[in-house]
């Protein structure tokens, strides 16, 4: 087990180098002036800029140097934990990512719960009622969710929840709550506002943060349910066909326990992997949902970074995501071993 963890961690630097080099490689399709677009962000900024100034800016940011030189320069800085400056975020790349990660983490944590829970629940029901009406209804329901583009459904949900009902506003906090959070008395323990709110005894703040999470969570949940549901359903069907299920029935285990104790536990093993992938996807930022709900997370940052070709930030985010992915997959593997005793000794 330990050897396995070590081996996986050894892959980490390799992945990170590969990923970032690929970004640099892609940037080679641009000429230096195009790369400068990260620094001159709109026509308005061209106002008093001569072509000489443009040359100077290119030199200043080293945009005309060859790929290898730029990459090595960048790596040199990385070694000192300096990810560079993001012009889009107006702050160092490291700060930009670290300041938005708690928001994304919070959203992911709160979204994961309903998605996995309900997804498994529906998946089990669907499998147990295989091919009957209930199964068909659940599957159609889920597959519609899966077929809905997030930019169609997200806007729709925002419109209903906030536009029509006026209940769940976009953003991350209401104004008054923002004032509380940025005040001196409010201590930030985790960066997750719901938890911090509770720890500070400000339940109103926690509730407010929760209120802002509802829209994105509903959107994400419906879109991702199908994902969990189908894998649960199919692995549940597979499990229900297994002989140990007949064994359980043959020893008189009630049907409820046959399903929930014997089949489900086995069916959940592949679900763990998928759920793990999903959590990693959520942590990597949900670009469109965050954009629509004006939620200040990694996804929105990534969207802006890539639209404006802010390559220090793109690199930072890719690095961050690569790290997350490798470590996250490792955690999933460990979890896997805990759920499935067969894996333990391998």
């Amino acid at each position, binding site marked *: 087990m330990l050897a396995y963890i070590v081996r996986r961690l050894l892959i980490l630097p390799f992945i990170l180098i590969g990923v970032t080099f690929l970004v640099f490689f892609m940037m080679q399709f641009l000429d230096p002036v195009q790369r400068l677009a990260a620094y001159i962000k709109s026509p308005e900024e061209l106002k008093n800029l001569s072509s000489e100034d443009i040359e100077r800016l290119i030199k200043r940011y080293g945009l005309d140097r060859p790929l290898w030189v730029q990459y090595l320069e960048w790596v040199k800085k990385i070694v000192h934990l300096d990810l560079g400056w993001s012009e889009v975020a107006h702050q160092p790349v490291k700060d930009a990512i670290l300041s938005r990660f708690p928001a994304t983490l919070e959203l992911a944590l709160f979204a994961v719960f309903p998605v996995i829970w309900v997804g498994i629940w529906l998946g089990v029901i669907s499998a147990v009622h295989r091919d009957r009406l209930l199964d068909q209804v659940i599957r159609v329901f889920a597959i519609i969710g899966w077929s809905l583009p997030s930019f169609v459904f997200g806007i729709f949900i925002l419109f209903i929840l906030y536009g029509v009902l006026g209940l769940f*506003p976009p953003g991350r906090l209401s104004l008054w709550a923002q004032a509380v959070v940025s005040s001196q008395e409010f201590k930030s323990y985790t960066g997750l506002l719901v938890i911090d709110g509770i720890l500070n005894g400000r339940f109103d703040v926690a509730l407010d943060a929760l209120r802002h999470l509802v829209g994105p969570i509903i959107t994400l949940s419906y879109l991702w349910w199908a994902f969990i549901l189908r894998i649960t359903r199919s692995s549940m069907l597979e499990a229900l066909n297994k002989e140990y299920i007949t064994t359980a029935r043959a020893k008189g285990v009630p049907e409820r326990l046959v399903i929930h104790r014997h089949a489900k536990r086995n069916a959940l093993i592949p679900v763990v992997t998928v759920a793990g992938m999903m959590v990693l996807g959520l942590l990597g930022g949900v670009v469109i949902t965050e954009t629509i709900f004006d939620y200040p997370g990694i996804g929105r940052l990534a969207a802006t970074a890539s639209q404006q070709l802010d390559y220090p930030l793109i690199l930072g985010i890719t690095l961050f995501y690569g790290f997350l992915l490798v470590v996250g997959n490792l955690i999933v593997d460990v979890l896997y071993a805990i759920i499935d005793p067969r894996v333990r000794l391998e």
Partner: protein
Amino acid sequence: MRTGRFLALSFAVILVFSSLAIAQLKNPDTIVIATIGDVSTLDPHFSYDTASGEIIYNVYENLIAYKGESLTEFVPLLATEVPSFENGLIKDGGKTYIFPIRKGVKFHNGYELTPEDVAYSFKRCMILDRSGGPSWMLLDPLLGYESIKDLVRDKLKVPSWEDLFTQDGKLKPEYEKGMREIYEMIDRAVEVQDDKVVFRLVKPYPPFLNILAQGAGWSAIVSKKWCVEQGDWPGTPDEWWKYHDPQKEKDPLYEKMNGTGPFKLVEWKKGEYVKLERNEAYWREPAKIRQVVIRRVDEWATRRMLLEKGDADAVYVPRQYLPQIEKMKGIRIIRGLPTLAIEVVLFNFNIRVEGNAYIGSGKLDGEGIPSDFFSDVHVRKGFCYLFDWDTYIKEVWNGEALQPTGIVPKGLLGYDPNGPKYSFNMEKAKEEFMKAWNGEVWNKGFKFTILYNAGNEERRIAAEMLARNARKLNPKFKIEVRGVQWSTYLSDLTKGNLPLFIMGWLADYPDPHNFVQPFLGSKGAFMAYQGRNAVDLAKIEFDPLIEKAMEIVDPKDREKIYFEIQRKEFEHAPHILLYQAMGVHVSRTWIKGWYYNPMRPGGDFYSLYKSAD
């Protein structure tokens, strides 16, 4: 089934709590603005955009300010008097300006304002002179050069600024003396005399007071002591060049503010919001509003709902979406606000040929255009007649824009309501195209691409209109309209690849020179992109008149010259004047005290307060 019950229950709980949160007048002592502007720096001398300018306007103060809605009258702010010939504070035929400095004003950190701070501020702005920044407005009247780099190049006879330094960034010893002399020039231009500050101009400069009154940054007064504490230029001649053209994020004032204005900076949450708080120790009455939050919300639908729910008091509304909020309750829409901005289609007289994918074959054979296609005045005029202003302004702007009669916009000296202008006329367009290139254009046709930076609707539609009308006029006239990423646009624009391109200009100060010079002057901001032939044309036709207009003080005489410039502009048609838009202000009706000044970058929060109707 347990899961289902729990879900229903938790949803019900959330519903109850959230319905408690709805109120009528929200946040009575806070103003929330939702906009798309991206604040890029808080250093007043670095900033040159309106989003940053709005913050700076409310935190820093200038010597003087515009009086209410006026563009010609001023009120003293950190000065105690507005200089004029009458009160003797403008002397030497408009080459010396004297400002008595107000006493007892404190910066937000408690430091007292001194005349020394004022002089330091202007010198700092001139020395800082970042690439593409606003410092030229001070440098031109005070030193006679548009940038420090031009000045250095001229005085020290070096090819470029970089040549002054060794590999490791040290000033080469041979330039030490020259650089000190240049500093003396800067130093002499703004001087402290007792409790006054004196500006010495190299020539009379009619819009100088406008430049000092503009609140977006370059004339803002900072505290010298505080700046030095932040690691900024210490105000001495030693190594002043190190503080020239800094990298934005290394600029000590990049994210810190310490002004004398009615609001203090509380927090700049990058990319999310800027929060300001009332300055209780303000030298006038403290502001009525305690707090201002400027939120960045890119999604229109979200902004709209924030406004509708009262969570935002004012939002940025793109013109095309006005119909959506016209019937909204509790919303005030103020239309027809004159803006000092103009949108122009510029012809490239010398299109670059090598590797240019936008001009087809590069020949006049019906499958492309030659490099100097637009050098023929008949081609340019032909295109001018193809643009359908009436439809465009009616459909795209809901009638809330003007067709310009010349480059000087309405509201400024030199605007000629009766000046000649082009109109949509297919016959005349045909006539011009038949004359162009000895009739070859009409017979063979052409093909090229108009680029616009994706996301700009008005520019897209203007380009499409030209393209569709051209094809209607002659099926051999093929224009492809293509939206591209800003990076591509930037690159092709600076390389000179674009056959024609659309640009806007927002006034830096309300004077016709600020429009004539960039668009018609041979050294103007846009001529460089319009090619050699355009520069030559400007040198002959426009430069002498532009210079003449700046040497004259009498407004009547100036106006005549600007009329003449614009008649020549019509005759040579170096560009198509698209529109001068009318501004729209949208806010909740409970916002009171709002007034308009076209030169102000955003809101004047000092004047605002909230009360239910």
